[in-house]
């Protein structure tokens, strides 16, 4: 049933994207003819509707991989000459691969560190935000739905300072709920991951070093979890342990938590409101985030009453100067698709589209790509 629905969505998007590409071709033809006509009197060749022909290799963040795979399928169905291989492997691998010039673009959940910029052989790198998604705090406690947790409580739970579900701190935030005397099992990622990075960043920003130092583990793709916690491989691994362990709590991305049918907690945001994880909450967080000129931003702990506080952002990064014309054109068309019609595809696989404002900025950034 699920696949049927997906197929239908896919088919409708394919038809949409064909229209979109046809339109975009008209536009490029227009913009290229005008300056040519004005500057030189060389014969102006109006471009025939261009057939994109290229193979793009890519790697990087696994967090948006499901969405990229959907987008790639829809895009390549409409552009049969283009093949895109998005290999995953993690944000760090994606950035390294782009730096080494072995991929055409990379997916990353984090920005490039200043110290690493010199290592990028192809020069300046452009950021294109693609989608956002909530990271859920999922738990397994039969009979207790809609649990509410503040960052302070989450920090204490994940640092094993709160070890029972009927702890006074949890009860205070959930008046009227009968909490069982079950022991809490904390579940985290066994592999280093951008999801861990974003989850710990949320705790660092809300109750970390500069905010009362309740969270002391810092923020990184791996942190030093207490020894009596459990770990799962990937989001699916964490979801599996949470699902199979009574009293477990862990951080899982929204799509795996939804697929696994996990219970998800509402989290207190920067405005003091408890917000359950949802795509709308994620979009609201992205809209409330401060966006830098190069389109880097953080949607974690963003302002706004409706903002879900653990919202992860992700980018596609590529070199500003594309030396291979065929690949450059294909990349540009693909990014354009992702930022326009591809956005409507996002909710079908549990990702939230960018706010209209951010998508427009990203589209403008696309014009900075130099091809050939």
């Amino acid at each position, binding site marked *: 049933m699920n696949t049927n629905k997906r197929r239908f969505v896919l088919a409708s998007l394919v038809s949409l994207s064909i229209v979109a590409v046809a339109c975009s071709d008209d536009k490029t033809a227009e913009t290229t003819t005008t300056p040519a006509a004005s500057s030189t009197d060389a014969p102006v060749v109006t471009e025939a509707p261009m057939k994109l022909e290229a193979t793009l290799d890519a790697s990087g963040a696994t967090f948006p991989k499901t969405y990229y795979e959907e987008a790639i399928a829809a895009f390549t169905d409409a552009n049969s000459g283009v093949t895109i291989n998005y290999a995953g492997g993690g944000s760090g*691998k994606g950035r390294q691969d782009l730096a080494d010039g072995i991929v055409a673009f990379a997916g990353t959940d984090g920005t490039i560190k200043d110290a690493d910029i010199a290592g990028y052989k192809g020069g300046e790198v452009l950021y294109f935000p693609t989608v956002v998604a909530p990271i859920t705090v999922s738990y397994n406690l039969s009979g207790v739905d809609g649990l509410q947790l503040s960052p302070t409580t989450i920090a204490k739970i994940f640092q094993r300072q709160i070890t029972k579900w009927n702890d006074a701190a949890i009860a205070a935030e959930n008046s009227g709920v009968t909490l069982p005397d079950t022991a809490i099992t904390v579940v985290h990622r*066994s592999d280093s*991951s951008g999801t861990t990075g974003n989850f710990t960043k949320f705790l660092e920003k809300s109750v970390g070093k500069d905010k009362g130092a309740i969270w002391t583990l810092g923020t990184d793709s791996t942190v030093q979890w207490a*020894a009596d916690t459990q770990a799962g491989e990937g989001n699916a691994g964490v979801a599996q342990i949470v699902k199979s362990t009574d009293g477990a709590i862990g951080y899982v991305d929204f799509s795996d938590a939804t697929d696994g049918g996990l219970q998800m907690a509402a989290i207190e945001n920067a405005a003091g409101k408890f917000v359950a994880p949802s795509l709308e909450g994620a979009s609201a967080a992205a809209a409330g985030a401060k966006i830098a000129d190069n389109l880097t931003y953080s949607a974690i702990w963003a302002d706004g009453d409706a903002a879900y506080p653990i919202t992860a952002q992700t980018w596609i990064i590529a070199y500003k100067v594309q030396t291979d014309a065929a690949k450059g054109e294909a990349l540009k068309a693909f990014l354009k698709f992702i930022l326009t019609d591809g956005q409507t595809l996002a909710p079908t696989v549990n990702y939230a589209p960018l706010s209209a404002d951010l998508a427009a900025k990203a589209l403008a950034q696309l014009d900075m790509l130099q091809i050939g």
Partner: protein
Amino acid sequence: MSSANSTDIATLERGLHASGGSADRAFRSTAYLAGGLVLLVLGLVTYTMVNRSTDAWSHMGLDFFTSRTWNPPEQFYGILSYVFGTVYTACIALAISVPLSLGIALFITQVAPRWLQRTMTYVIDLLAVVPSVVFGLWGVLVLSVHIKGFYKWMSSTFDGVPVLGSVFGPNPQGRSFFTAGIILAVMITPIIVSLSREVIQTTPQNEKEAALALGATRWEMIRGAVLPHSKGGLVGAVMLGLGRAMGETIAVALVIGSATGRIGLNVFAGGNSMPAVITAEWGEADALKKSALIAMAVTLFVMTILVNVIATTVVNRSMKKTRGV
């Protein structure tokens, strides 16, 4: 007549020598090249790894080996708990696998009827070609979920018993040292069985018959004739199994529990091992962490080489002894 004959032989000899000589040379140089290439690759791997791990050595100093704190946000990398996890899981695997493997090998060679021998050998060799990720997935999806009850029973049974009470300790977890040990045991059993089988089969028939003729039972014959003869080879087989267990990566990464800093006797607690940490943390590692992971790989490399060198030495010595050289 005789002179003609001798000339013929001389010609023949010369011909043989000429062609044989060049073939010999070609063969010799190919063999040297192949052998040299192995050493060259090994040398280059070692050089690259040592070279790329220098940052971590100089950043951490001796703490790298003596600390159990692995804290990436603070850029502090100590591998002691991972070394412990590697050795401990390998020991658990051996404790399970060695008696089992020797039993199987003795059964196949001494007890089983011929048709069963062939079937069993075939099935066990088949076990050796199952990819480790298959064992890992089975471990994480089936074994670690269903074995919890058994762990709880063991834990409560041995509660309060000295030594055993801390080995089969409290709060058992599905993903733990012991689960990793079981998976490793399954993986190294075929290796130990097939090597032991071959060693045991080299026991001279007349020694076994002599033992039986003296009125020994089958077990006495095995103990008196077979085991002393093949002791060295069996130790070598076990050591090779140990080397394999220490280097196993993905299957262990999935079931060991991935807890940092754990050093303790409790086999039902989660921990981590060196290869598992390397594969789990490589993807998002920054420069210094990569260096630390490579330094850990160097450590593992040295440990497995030591185990293999010891294994080879033991096997060679026992071979010499049995040949009577």
